[in-house]
């Protein structure tokens, strides 16, 4: 009878710790922080910057990587940021574009001040260096 409630609190305490100290969105993770803060999915976003010799470009998140980007924006831990960076690098290479590093930035929008306004605030940055740089496949 108590086990489900004990599990609920165990998960919720972990969620609170992750939200307070590791940038997990309070809306997610089983801690029931939804509708309590603007720090949710709609007010977080990801920036992708790809570098290579002669190339430095910001990419929009491709539809195929929406899921990976969503995870990284909701919980910008190294694991999810690296996964996304790796997927971007693989995709660039498949499409024949050079890539030596992928930078993933997780951002949120903070609403504050009088008059009220939104300001972008960087949560975390992760750079994946590819060594040796991935070259486009040769025909």
């Amino acid at each position, binding site marked *: 009878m108590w086990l489900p409630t004990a599990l609920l609190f165990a998960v919720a305490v972990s969620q609170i710790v992750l939200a307070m100290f590791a940038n997990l969105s309070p809306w997610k993770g089983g801690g029931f922080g939804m509708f309590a803060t603007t720090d949710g999915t709609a007010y977080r976003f990801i920036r992708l910057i790809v570098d290579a010799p002669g190339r430095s470009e910001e990419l929009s998140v491709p539809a195929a990587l929406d*899921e990976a980007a969503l995870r990284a924006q909701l919980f910008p831990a190294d694991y999810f940021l690296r996964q996304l960076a790796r997927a971007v690098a693989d995709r660039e290479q498949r499409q024949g574009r050079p890539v030596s590093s992928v930078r993933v930035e997780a951002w949120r929008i903070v609403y504050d001040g009088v008059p*009220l306004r939104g300001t*972008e605030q960087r949560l975390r940055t992760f750079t994946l260096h590819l060594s040796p740089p991935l070259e486009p496949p040769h025909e």
Partner: protein
Amino acid sequence: MHVPLALRLTALTLLLRPMGPWTVRPLILLCAGVALLSPRALLRPLTWYTLAALIALRIAADWPVPDNHIYLLAYWCLAAALALGAGNGVGSHDGERHDSRPHYERVIATSGRLLIGSAFLLAVLWKAALSTDYLDGRFFRVTWLTDDRFSDTVQLLGGLSQPQLDHNRDVLKALPEGAELLHPPALEEPRAFLRLVLVSTWGMLVVESLIAATFLLPLGPRLSVVRHPLLLAFCVVTYAIAPVAGFGWLLLTMGVALCRREQRALRATYVATWFLVLLYSEVPWASLAIGWLGGSSG
């Protein structure tokens, strides 16, 4: 017969909102379908252990994306499995001295009560103590103005016109880190909108606090009757606006499990509200109301 009803509603919820990756989704649908069609499967602990495990797998596979009610659904399925496995002996439980319900019905009712109370307690903790932008009204100011899902509602209840809403969205567009506008434009917030922000911020907090208290505190039989109207009122109001029918269905399903056998009218009210939430999720009532008001005033 309220526990089988609650379990059927749980199965129906799972079927109405298929979830998870393809590796888990068909199995959840299959289990829920079998539970709905077979009275034997419905009351077998194995069915609910399996569903709890599959939903937990879904959470792990998609983490951290799943919403909070998916976690609650997993706990609820586990509670059902444990209760059904607890047997049918008769005895007293949960402070009910003359409760003649079978043991598993009392266990599942207590679990449901604790789960509802705990979920609301945590929701209150976040709003009142952990969040930095709830109590001053910023959360609802920003959400009402910028979330597309609430555009119709905020026009209907907040007295905002579409041009005002568009202006406010422009004002709230995020500036780059460190940037400042020389003459920052102000939001257009009519009195009705500010009232809506105030009522939604404090109304939500007060009702959620009351639900947490009445479901968790050991109230006597007289005081505990206020639990149900509070939960029903919360669901009727919240899920008319919030697009998370699955959460509403789950709370109402657990409410059904809390009803004693003789509380037929209460049980019927829960079921009617369950279907009301279904209607809310399928009928764009706020948009229809705006159209109707626009037509009747023009």
